[in-house]
């Protein structure tokens, strides 16, 4: 068996430069190192503004970085450093090995909840459209999303309903690295338990997981260890700052 970690973050540095504020520099990550192995779940902890979400976005490739390395080792391809990867490499990794459950669902006009979920399976290589829909339906049922909503675009759903669609989308394709940004924030106790089960199943399959869980009960249930982010200059979330 390959004993190298699935995710290996080495000395990651991320500073936001706000050109609209006279080039104000916000150093958010200053040398973050973190390794996560197969089947392991690491919770990012630390007060707000320490860069937990920023790190997650770097790990998905939505944010760039000035220094350091983010190695992702997947079975299907060679190790890839997300800091220096080309857009094509990042896109291929996202299709095949990297999944991200963000806090908010980006809804598309006219695309139903079921399609939003099934689409992710098809992108990840499922060739049978019907099977993709069946699995999407299974997940939405497990997450107790009322069946009457499956055929509707999620734009008008409540926060908790949208989040469940988002979770189903994140779990439908088995990823080697799964990023969870507050996956249970607006869920009730019953659905939190479903999410905990889904996380446990993913770990059993060997998925490496990095998560932000403000819900301590969920964190204690799924995390093998915590990684504390601290002591960058306490900075406001840069994009809010921009807006």
């Amino acid at each position, binding site marked *: 068996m390959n004993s190298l970690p699935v995710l290996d973050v080495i000395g990651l540095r991320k500073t936001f430069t706000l050109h*609209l504020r006279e080039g104000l520099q916000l150093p958010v990550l200053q040398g973050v190192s973190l390794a996560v192995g197969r089947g392991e779940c690491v919770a990012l902890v630390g007060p707000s503004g320490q860069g937990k979400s920023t790190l997650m976005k770097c790990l998905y490739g939505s*944010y760039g970085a000035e220094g350091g390395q983010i190695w992702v080792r997947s079975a299907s*391809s060679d190790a890839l450093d997300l800091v220096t990867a080309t*857009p094509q490499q990042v*896109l*291929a990794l996202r299709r095949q090995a990297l999944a991200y459950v963000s806090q908010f669902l980006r809804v598309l006009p006219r695309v139903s909840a079921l399609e939003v979920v099934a689409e992710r399976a098809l992108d990840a290589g499922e060739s049978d459209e019907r099977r993709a829909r069946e699995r999407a339906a299974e997940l939405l049922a497990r997450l107790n999303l009322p069946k009457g909503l499956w055929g509707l675009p999620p734009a008008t759903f409540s926060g908790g309903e949208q989040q469940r669609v988002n979770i189903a989308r994140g779990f439908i394709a088995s990823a080697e690295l799964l990023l969870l940004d507050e996956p249970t924030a607006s869920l009730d106790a019953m659905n939190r338990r479903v999410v905990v089960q889904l996380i446990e199943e993913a770990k059993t399959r060997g998925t490496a997981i990095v998560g932000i869980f403000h819900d301590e009960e969920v964190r204690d249930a799924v995390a093998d260890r915590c990684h504390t982010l601290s002591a960058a200059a306490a900075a406001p979330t840069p*994009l809010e700052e921009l807006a």
Partner: protein
Amino acid sequence: MSTCSSPQPLLDVQGLSHRFAGARPGVWAVQDASLQLYPGEVLAIVGESGSGKSSLLNCIAGRIACAPGQVHYRRARDEAWVDVHALPERERRQLARTEWGFVEQHAADGLRMNVSAGANVGERLMAAGERRYEALREQGRRWMDAVELDPTRIDESPRAFSGGMRQRLQIARNLVTHPRLVLMDEPTSGLDVSVQARLLDLIRQLVARLHLSALIVTHDLGVARLLAQRTLVMRQGRIVEQGLTDRVLDDPQHPYTQLLVSSVVAP
């Protein structure tokens, strides 16, 4: 999927520049633009009016000259790289109506307004040698249906269609020969918001289903977010930033991109 891991680009643009006739010295519509487009990829070109987006698209299409600069395209027929601007005019036109599509901002510029909807869809097929009337009708109906137009209106003039319908007809007219590269110039601007959403979703579905590669010029960052895996930002004729769409929009590096992103209500 693994065959896509290190694909060759379909389009390779190097150091493209264009100057309008009579422009002041030092003023370029497009200056030193380089980009690649990969199979199955949608690349958005964003920037404000006058930034050179449409000129760049027209240069790539070979409709206006570029000096200096080169546009290379990997032809489907033999997978050979061809220099678009060095092709004889006849061959470039042949390429433009078989392997390429071009969706104009104003549908009236991309349609023949004096012939029927069906004839508009059938034109490229006829140019490609299809002469059987029923086959042309059948394709006309099929493609009208694919772009959510009522196929029973096949004999109507595009003049009888609304703006959004005309735009969908223009898309059908382009896709009927199964091009593998589609260039779109602001395909949704000038339409009502609800019509825009429908058209965007249709483009999104068609691009995915037909495995099209597309260059989409837009001033609307939401369009880029919805349709494009990669985005390129232009300002004063130059490409100031390009990369993954979510990275360009969520972690913009160039001062101009930061201004653009912070200037919209919901990017």
